[in-house]
């Protein structure tokens, strides 16, 4: 048992050096990933007034069960079918706010990223706390 613990400590130590090198190389990537970045609160989003275009990144059944008034459904599962609907509604003056289920979901960030990279939308935000944070 003592030998096993010693071996485990050796493995913990062995992993340390490449991890430190990796941290040095990937520093910017790590920093960007762990900063809140483009998240905005519901109150901030409301401040955008009529310019706002809500994007519901939740799965289609969740959207069908209820969504923010005027929100467009756009999720990764049906991206190809849904993105055309978004492009019809979007123009450069609109401010896009994407939401998913809650604060822990990744879908809103993923959709926001794809809108920036694949559609070329610049003004994209993610709703902090998502659908669950909305006042009911």
């Amino acid at each position, binding site marked *: *048992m003592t*030998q*096993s*613990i*010693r*071996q*485990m*400590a*050796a*493995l*913990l130590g*062995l*992993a*340390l050096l*490449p*991890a430190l090198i*990796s*941290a040095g190389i*990937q520093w910017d*990537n*790590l*920093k*960007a*990933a*762990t*900063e809140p970045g483009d998240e905005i609160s519901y109150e901030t989003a409301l401040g955008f007034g009529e310019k706002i275009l809500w994007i519901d990144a*939740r799965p289609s059944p969740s959207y069908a069960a209820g969504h923010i008034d005027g929100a467009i459904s756009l999720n*990764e599962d049906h991206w190809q079918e849904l993105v055309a609907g978004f492009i019809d509604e979007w123009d450069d003056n609109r401010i896009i706010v994407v939401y*998913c*289920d*809650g*604060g*822990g*979901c*990744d*879908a809103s*960030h993923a959709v926001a990223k794809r809108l920036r990279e694949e559609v070329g939308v610049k003004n994209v935000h993610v709703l902090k706390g998502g659908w669950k944070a909305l006042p009911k």
Partner: protein
Amino acid sequence: MESIAKVIPLLLRLTLGGVFVYAGLTKVTNPGDFAKDILHYHLIPWPAAAAALAVYLPWFEIFCGLGILLQRLYAGALMAVSGMMLVFTCALASAWFRGLDIACGCFGKTKVDIQTHFPALMARDLTLLAIAVVLLVRVFRKGKAASPG
């Protein structure tokens, strides 16, 4: 019969070691995405701690996986893997219990959603935990038999 008794532990060892090396390699190139996945579990409230874990854990997984495959620091690697699988399983169960709509983060940036795949993810993690424990018990039994008195 004797050959089966030798082949099964070998297969279990190759599976467990292979899975850990693969899991580490998928995450080691993009620790940023892995840090995000860790934060989404809401178990570690400090982004800096999540970033440190995201950069360290994949390497630890790779070394443990190699230890199991090559039977170097073997018992220690099995013990570490058992501990990791226990922690991963608890994290998964807690995310499911809290109804979090998040990606698993187990094998890098794949879209394996916890809510929809929970039974499969849980079954996979428990299977890996069971394999690690079986191999570890085997090592301890062998060690006991080999030690004098």
